[in-house]
């Protein structure tokens, strides 16, 4: 099973990096190969990385309270890229200054184009579950397509027939 590539980034104004160090380890523990762009990433740098690499996932992690506003600008730009139409792009962290804004922020960012928004006290847990599910689906489709290539017919999937995921 080849490794999936993940782009890990933050927003332009955010100079915090321990969240990015942690996220990289977390993604690597789910067998992703991670390109970690580090602090204060300009939108253009994210666009270039997405256009150059074959990615399965983009993760935006931010903790300085500006993630909701700058994250919204970012996703709108990214979804205009031809290669980013079906790319899974998620965002998480401390995205606002006030604590009670999580739900509104979540709806707003999903509407803007993110596939997942991970905020609040259990955000890391939910994110782990999300990438675990993501890995199972990806592995499943890799195995399925490898099998299809060898046997040259399509498989009808059902929950009962789902293949076991590799050991995560």
């Amino acid at each position: 099973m080849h490794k999936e590539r993940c782009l890990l980034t933050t927003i332009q104004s955010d100079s915090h990096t321990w969240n990015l160090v942690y996220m990289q380890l977390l993604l690597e523990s789910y067998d992703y190969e991670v390109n970690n762009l580090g602090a204060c990433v300009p939108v253009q740098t994210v666009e270039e990385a997405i256009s150059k690499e074959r990615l399965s996932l983009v993760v935006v992690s931010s903790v300085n309270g500006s993630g909701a506003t700058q994250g919204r600008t970012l996703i709108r730009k990214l979804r205009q890229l031809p290669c980013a139409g079906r790319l899974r792009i998620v965002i998480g962290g401390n995205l606002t200054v006030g604590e009670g804004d999580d739900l509104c922020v979540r709806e707003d960012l999903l509407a803007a184009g993110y596939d997942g928004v991970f905020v609040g006290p259990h955000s890391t847990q939910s994110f782990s579950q999300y990438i675990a599910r993501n890995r199972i689906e990806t592995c499943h489709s890799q195995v399925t397509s490898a099998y299809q290539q060898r046997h040259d017919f399509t498989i009808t999937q059902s929950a009962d027939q789902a293949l076991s995921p590799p050991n995560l």
Partner: protein
Amino acid sequence: MGFGSPAKMRQGLIATRECSVCSIGTLTLDSYSRGCDYLSPLVDLSQGIELNGYPILSYPADTTRQILEGIQCDSFPVQMRHGTPLPMDVFKKLGEVGINATEGGPISYCMPYGRVALKDCTKAWFNASRYMQGEFEQPHLETFGGCLMGQLCPPSLLVATSILEALFFASAGIRSVSLSYCQGTSLQQDYAALTVLRNQALRYLNRLDWHVVVYTYMGMYPKSASGAEMLLRDSAGLAQTAGCERLIVKTRSERYRIPSIEDNLQALITADQAAAAITNHPGYTVRTAELQSEIEEEVQSIIESVLNLSSDLQAAIVGSFERGILDIPFCLHPDNAQQARGLVDENGQLKWAKTGNLPFKHDPSQKQKPLTPELLLWQLEYVANKYDNLAANQKGIRPK
């Protein structure tokens, strides 16, 4: 200390000056301004949104002069704290408003918090330091190299970086410097490191007017107020025992919010009391001597290798990072080699997990289990948990 409102900034400086502690004043820049965005601070303030610092570049010089009027003097200097990789705008503003003390460095304000190319940053810091030397009366620069990422960096690299940044300032003509060192995971190890720092300063900086400034722990802070207070008191005791001249404090609210003026005052008073209460030397044990010699050997190796690369410190620093002779653990900057890594060992001390190309004579790295996210978190939370537990245990034995 930094607030968006000039009135509150002045109030904070007055309170700091008038409290019983021998203190200096600080103006801390907000994070928009650190990224050269001088408009957003004013937009936020106009919408009633509080900033996380004072936007000195967004206000006319007169506004800041009025803050300092009648407060700043020889016995109460004011230092600008800013965190900018390209500091010329800040330094020019300081010249306009009459502040002659600031801090940072080409390594410490480039690598940990941004992505400005190191060669651009070293050039900018050299030019800005030359500007200070030429234009200011008695300019003073403090290194931030003793802090770097704030966590998980073995002390030898902090000490070496602090000395190298001071040498860098000196090469630009600055004659008055202070050397930072940030409290780590072990008081004994920190005491040894501070002894090495002072010895290295005597060796390399003997033509300069220098002193050492200890920073209270810069990593993840205890959750409890009493844990936070114990950590602060220990840092004050450390600074006092190690013969250091200045301490930069952290407040009880560090984990939760930007500190208020009252938080800051309480921290100053607590630290002052803790330092005054030191009556005994903690003990120059055999173990401290071993730690000192270990740290000294690593520091010497780093400094000599960097200085041997070039007599031009800009070239020496850039070349060192290119070769991994300088390599900051967990630093994600594109110019950092990212081959070196620190860890908290079973004695609660900061050691090397891997050293990459750091120029040590003997490889000091310790075997470590693979770094999982859980192990990283444990290490990041080590000090916070230690002090929260200490505080809780103390409470447990107090009679009701």
